[in-house]
């Protein structure tokens, strides 16, 4: 039994590594193609063009009093000409709404709308008396969570395309231009959603909602996550997009076709993984209605978000991600190895099932088994060391690839020291893997116990001046980045 188990772990590791290699290759191809094409694109044409489609930017906010004013200002100054900003105050218990009301001179309007997607009661819709803020709409509603707030925003907004973002994220000024482009490239397939790269803002210099200087985080955990995000976004999602198996557009920022979202039923309020669940449901809807569609992904950094810098917050975030993953996979289990859903059913879903859900569990039981063997004094230490070196060297190598991809593509970290720090973390990261698996196991246990909700996390603000203070905010922004 022990030998069989060891075989399972070993071969799973081999398949996982092989899949990483394949994803790396696909990602390199897709990145090269994208960057080459992008070098001929002039996004400025879109900025002033009267032909640009209208876009609604929907940002749910819950107890965001520390950053909301700056963040709304950043949103209103985005580099695009035809957009509206819809901030959904999700029943904040602090003064988030009052701050906005004062800062933007808001008055309640007689807004008539349809609950096309069910959501919590909307207490009021507010607009500014100041014409400078005529792009801004604020929705005040009962607390219902992030998904519910997004649904409220979708009900209220009018444009055909909407961007869902986290109000506490920092958006790159040209992010809308980049996100909307796939929707403008008319193909035989309908583009239903586009996602992009999310970056980590910890330790960066932020001033009034804009990033002044980009730095690698000074603390170990956020730095570790920089590497993780780089790998996930530049290697993983880019490749899955190329393979038409993309299952997740990060909740921190994504652009969607509003009508398709409404027809698919909007965001699910029953899961904490609403971003993944939405993509799965939209794709399922399109496949079941036999409509040709596409979910695209662009490798440009679009949005910067703060990640947990202590283990406790990280645990909460990761266990929530695991729960979200399980809920999404369980809801759409019909897609598993189902050719009706194309490559998503045959490749994407099984990959997430085996390597995102099951692999940490198997790895965790592997750790337990190893401890058992050590206690029994029957661990084959030389072979164990050999296997460890194999896994370690491969993991570090893959991380180095990711750093290289970042270097030759967007080159966001200008200082050599920052890159060397990332490389240093790549060497340490594999030792942190047991902690990740522990979080995954906890997430599974929570899912088994039927735990719901987001919880909260300790975070520090973006602004230098505010960094000294710690605040408690909803950390919904980080789901499955």
């Amino acid at each position, binding site marked *: 039994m022990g030998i069989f188990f060891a075989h399972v772990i070993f071969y799973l590791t081999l398949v996982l590594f092989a899949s990483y290699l394949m994803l790396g290759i696909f990602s390199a191809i897709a990145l090269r193609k994208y960057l080459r094409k992008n070098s001929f694109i002039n996004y400025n044409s879109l900025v002033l063009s009267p032909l640009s489609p209208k876009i609604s930017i929907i940002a749910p906010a819950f107890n965001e009093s520390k950053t909301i004013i700056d963040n709304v200002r950043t949103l209103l100054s985005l580099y695009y000409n035809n957009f509206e900003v819809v901030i959904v105050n999700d029943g904040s218990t602090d003064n988030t709404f009052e701050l906005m009301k004062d800062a933007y001179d808001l008055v309640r309007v007689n807004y*008539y709308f349809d609950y096309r997607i069910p959501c919590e009661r909307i207490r009021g819709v507010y607009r500014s008396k100041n014409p400078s803020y005529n792009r801004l709409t604020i929705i005040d509603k009962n607390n219902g969570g992030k998904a519910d707030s997004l649904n409220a925003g979708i009900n209220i907004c009018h444009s055909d395309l909407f961007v869902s973002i986290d109000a506490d994220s920092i958006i790159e000024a040209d992010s809308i231009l980049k996100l909307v482009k796939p929707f403008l490239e008319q193909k035989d397939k309908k583009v239903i959603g586009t996602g992009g790269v999310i970056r980590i803002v910890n330790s960066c210099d932020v001033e009034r909602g804009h990033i002044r200087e980009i730095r690698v985080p000074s603390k170990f955990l956020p730095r570790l996550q920089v590497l993780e995000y780089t790998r996930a976004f530049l290697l993983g999602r880019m490749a899955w997009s190329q393979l038409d198996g993309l299952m997740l557009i990060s909740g921190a920022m994504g652009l969607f076709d509003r009508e398709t979202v409404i027809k698919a039923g909007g965001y699910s309020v029953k899961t904490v993984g609403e971003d993944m669940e939405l993509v799965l449901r939209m794709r399922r809807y399109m496949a079941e209605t036999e409509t040709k569609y596409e979910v695209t992904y662009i490798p440009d950094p679009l949005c910067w978000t703060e990640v947990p810098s202590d283990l406790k917050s990280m645990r909460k975030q990761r266990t929530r991600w695991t729960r979200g993953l399980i809920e999404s996979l369980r809801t759409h289990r019909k897609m598993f190895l189902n050719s009706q859903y194309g490559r998503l059913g045959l490749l994407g879903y099984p990959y997430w099932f085996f390597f995102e859900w099951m692999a940490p569990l198997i790895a965790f039981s592997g750790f337990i088994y190893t401890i058992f063997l050590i206690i029994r004094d029957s661990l084959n230490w030389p072979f164990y060391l050999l296997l460890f070196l194999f896994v370690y060297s491969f993991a570090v190598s893959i991380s180095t690839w990711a750093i290289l991809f970042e270097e030759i593509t967007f080159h966001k970290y200008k200082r050599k020291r920052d890159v060397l720090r990332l490389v240093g973390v790549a060497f340490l990261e594999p030792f942190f893997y047991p902690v990740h698996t522990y979080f995954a196991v906890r997430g599974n246990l929570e899912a088994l116990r039927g735990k719901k909700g987001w919880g909260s996390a300790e975070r520090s603000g973006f602004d230098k001046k505010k960094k000294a203070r710690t605040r408690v905010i909803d950390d919904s922004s980080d789901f499955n980045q």
Partner: protein
Amino acid sequence: MRNRVIAILSLLVFTVLKAGHTADYSLNRIHPEPVFIPDGASLITAGVNDARLNDVIGLSKDFYPIQIGAFRVKSNAERMYNEVSEVLGSDVAILEEDGYFKVRVSKLDLDKVKSYIEEAEEPSAPLADTIKTAAITADTVQEAFVAVPPVIEMPAPAVEPIVVKPPKFFLLNSESPWLKRINYFGKSFALVNALIITIFISFVTMIILLMVILLNRRRMEKEEDLRQYLAETYQGMIIDYLFSGSSPDKFRSIASDTYRRQALIDQMIDVSVNLKGDAEDKLSGLYLYLGLDRDSIRRAHDYRWHKKIKGFRELAFMNIKDANDEIYEALNSRNEILRMEAQIALVRLTNEDPFGFLFQLERPFSLWEQITLHELIIQHDLPVPEFSKFLKASNPSVVMFALRMIREFKQRQAEDDVREALEHPSQEVRKLSVEVAGDLEFRSTLEVMKRMYKTQDNHTCLEIIRAMAKMPDPSLLGFLRLVLDKEDDVQLQIEATKAIENNGEEGVKTLVKLMKSEYKNYNIIVRHVLDRRIF
């Protein structure tokens, strides 16, 4: 003595084979010293005969127990004991002596031993070979299969190890002290070596990548500096040439170097954007004089799309028409960027009917391409054609572009054609036609819109009502009221109310009536429409 050893080793062979495994007898606890065989003993090199066997059996029955293993750890001795006794079915015993746990056999049965040996001596596996194999397999067992006389002390000559040469490509072989200890997945040499090779490759890759990362950084910085320097220098030279009348010959040396030539071309293109008239012609003259057009034409014919694009751009800016055929071919390329660049180049390079290529477009003319072309017209102040002629194009996306351009350039003379486009087979074209008709207030389209309302999808219906709001007409009040009454869609209701309200006094009267209506609660809709902060 020699004969005895022969038989004993035969037994060992069988024991080991029959037990089928030697796995964890020792790990790192085996007897570390050389194996000794008492005086006269040696390894088997030939078969076993009856006489020799009798000898051994006799011995075992009388005084000589046969020792088949000695271990420092008792559990290992016990494991061997269990396996041997299972196979031999004879008296097997463990005794502790000189700090070792020794496994010994006595009272062997002749017939049984014979049958073991027959089994072990199959033609395909001669005994000697089998022994070797077994010895390899049994690497963890102390090979001290000796008959131990109870009293006589004998000198113990060292035994030569049995050597099996592994294939050369393996990094580790059977003799490796690593493999001696490794027993995983059947001690596969291939697996262990594959792991070692992968580890090696991974580390080497890592080091190479690190070097690439660091060197690439330096290369990029240097390249950027050089590019900046060349750009500034060449721009100055070009401006000097254009406006101070300096000689073109100083560009000759630049044009002889491929990298610098490209930098010069890029600068000429940059400068040409802001030039008109004589200066533009003079720059084109310099371009031809230096033979740079040949580079651009070669690039336009390149099989790589990104090279082609560069070529198209250069030719378009320098107004060189020699590669127009190639550009026409690219119009229907699968690559949307190449298509777009071909369109831009053709608009710039075609004197008569620069937009004529639109009729040749077979692929969808994307909104992105339309935006780019529109920007080109505006930025370069190109002559605007009568876009209504493109409403007849077979490609619906071209028709949509024409509709958009009619709106942007306010070509009101296209009213009749737009009205016709309202009945276009494509739903998207119909919707856009309604939008354009509304924006340009083509009142003659109102009746058509009213007629077609029932047969359109929700989006087009919404646009029809919006268009009606833009062209207030009291004769439509009844129709709008009907929409308000019958439609469930909130957006349609709001737009219909807006359209009613836009009809001035009559519209307001209708709204007042509506607010008193008991058929539906219109108050909330009307309040929404009358709130000027909502748009």
